């Protein structure tokens, strides 16, 4: 199929009321949902607000709910959706600021709470020394470092939707990425945060986060591995002080 007319049904919000807008888009082969949104902005209603930057699936700005599932708008081709009605909504579990733009401040605050930086006892800023890391050590955590912080995992996590203070899959995957990094020396500090009230134990393995992650980071896997480590850590703390 080379071309088809589709209807974009977009959920709008102007700060006071919620409403829906419909637009007809002439979708060609290869045209992405993001291009469709720009088409709307340039030809129909330039007040449509959405986030977009790289258009190649690496910046994480354009994660929205398309026909009920969270996806990156720039990577989703309209004709691949096999439907002539495309429902476009902002991500769940986030407060909506305007149209498709949601409040991401809290998401980044949670990310920063797991201390997502390499912790080393000696911080040699002036004369740094190369740290050796074999390819097999790199592959242990590399996949988890691919997270683009798009928020798709957070939007489908039932734990995140029932409790506002759960750190969320992205933050937990980030925590595991550093714990599994052979160069990191901050195991204890991060474990304290991760074993705490809002950490791993809030996850009940709905597994939806791994299903929707556009970069294949598998946060569910990271959290389960983290959980095993947490269990050992807590037992050790209990019996050995």
């Amino acid at each position, binding site marked *: 199929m080379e071309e088809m007319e589709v209807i974009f049904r977009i959920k709008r919000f102007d700060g006071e009321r919620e409403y829906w807008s419909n637009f007809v888009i002439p979708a060609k082969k290869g045209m992405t949902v993001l291009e469709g949104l720009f088409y709307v902005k340039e030809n129909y209603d330039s007040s449509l*607000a959405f986030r977009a930057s*790289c*258009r190649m699936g690496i*910046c994480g*700005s354009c994660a929205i709910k398309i026909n009920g599932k969270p996806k990156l708008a720039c990577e989703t081709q309209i004709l691949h959706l096999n439907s002539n009605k495309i429902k476009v909504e902002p991500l769940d579990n986030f407060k909506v600021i305007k149209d498709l733009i949601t409040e991401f401040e809290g998401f980044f605050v949670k990310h920063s709470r797991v201390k997502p*930086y*390499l912790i080393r006892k000696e911080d040699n800023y002036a004369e740094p020394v190369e740290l050796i890391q074999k390819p097999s*050590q*790199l592959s242990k955590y590399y996949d988890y470092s691919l997270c683009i912080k798009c928020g798709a995992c957070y939007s489908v996590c039932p734990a995140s939707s029932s409790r506002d203070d759960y750190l969320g899959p992205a933050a937990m995957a980030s925590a595991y990425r550093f714990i599994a*990094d052979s160069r990191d020396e901050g195991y204890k500090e991060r474990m304290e945060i991760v074993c705490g009230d809002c950490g791993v134990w809030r996850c009940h393995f709905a597994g939806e986060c791994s299903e929707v992650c556009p970069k294949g980071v598998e946060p569910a896997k990271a959290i389960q591995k983290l959980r095993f480590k947490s269990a050992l850590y807590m037992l050790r703390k209990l019996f050995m002080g």
Partner: protein
Amino acid sequence: MRIRSDIVIVGAGLAGLRAAISAAEVSNQLSIAIISKTYPIRCHSVCAEGGTAAVLSEEDSFDLHAWDTVKGSDFLADQPAVELFVREMPNEILRLDNWGCPWSRTDDGRIAQRPFGGHSFNRTVFAADRTGFHEVHTLYERMLMYPNITRFEEYFVTNLAIEDNEVKGLTAIELKTGELVLFEAKAVILATGGAGRLFGFTTYSHQVTGDGMAIAFRAGVPLKDMEFFQFHPTGLIPSGILMTEACRGEGGYLINRNEERFMKNYAPERMELAPRDVVARSMWREIIEGRGFDSPYGPYIALDLTHLGEDKIDERLPLIRSASIKFAGVDPVEEPIPVRPVAHYTMGGVHTNMNCETNIRGLYAAGEVACVSIHGANRLGSNSTAECLVFGRIAGEKAAEYALKKNYYPSTDFLKEEESKINSLLKESGDESPYQIKSELNKTMDENLWIFRNEEGMMDALRKINELKERYANISITDKSRRFNTDLTFAIEVGFMLDLAEVVVLGALKRKESRGAHFRTDYPERDDENWLKHTLAHYTKDGIEFSYIPVEITKWEPVERKY
């Protein structure tokens, strides 16, 4: 609302983040504000793919890296700056390693390096083919450690407040609420990136509209060498998504419709790994002379990676493979990728010296927005991420030292003036669409300021740009609300781009020679006698004035540039 800090950094890409960390390391008593129009990890720097060049091996040398850079720049680079740059690079790589960057490794655990265009030694350090992505995340995460750095995310900077040749601060729109905020600061660092969205077929993100360059220009800072725009040889069609130079570095070939590796006719020694301007010109020549492939998206050249094997591609070029499949429907393991030269880097920018200082006291610039110049007329691959790290660090340090010495906070009434300007822009109800203006600007830049330029085409472009500037005075902004008004910010960005386009066209018209990325079919030779100098464009009420300054040459005299 007014916010007061010691240092304000505009832009949170590689250079901005590095400057923030560098300033925080100088003193933890300094209050540092970093402003960006998107969240820091959504900056354009995350799109950088290939790598960062540094001299790490015993067999390599600083002189060789500097020579490669100077020759690559077609001898327009300022050599003392280049020599400083290459000497600072190795430590930056090691610092990133210590901060957690997942550099790709050799079998014995050392940081790996790959070949890259224009470099005589395999010195490009890389993290798979997502180097920029990993560097940005590493710097962002490191920045979280410093309590004296405050982030102002999704703030759109509209103007600098400058009085008596001293910077007082800047104004920015807080996008969430639409409120105009005045930031008062002792020192300001511009790190807003390039201006690639002037062109239609470009690798740049949607947000790279040259904001910092245009604001500085209007505020009295000269722009240097703006006519030099790099065209990267391999941009995926039709989106323009970058297919990194590392594809050729890992052994990929460029093939025309006669199934030949045509680079042997243009750069017999380096072949596909000649500098980007040479390769782009060769590819474009092949296309004009009818040896490109045809497609519904225009002619293209084939980037052939099929002989590398699935394992190597998955290990070294995973992002390329997934981008090619997702956006062009082509699996590089099976078929060659359709590519065409694409607008990729702005060599020109805000005129700074080696210490990232501009002519205005307290105003610094680092990264792609600045022109030191170390890239001259053409940048070598993997030197830009390197530049952001080195000069980001220097700008942060110098700004911090300046702020520590300054014992007063500048204050200004600039806010009221700027408020009324924004309000009147919002009230405008003309009949021109800013989206239409941008699309016509892109079209004329793509046609006339591309790889092969001539007098006639550029005069056409100048006429068109002047016409668009007149029409811009009559634009209408549909969204009249204050809350996250992307319509307003887009209109302001178009205004910035029109200013910059005029500087580019005039500079290109004046430079009657071909050097590096600026190639004129009517003046196809390099003219060192008359044109071994930098173009400076100054903003005046009566139009743009041009002056010229000499290139700093210390070690290497210009020679014929053959590859």
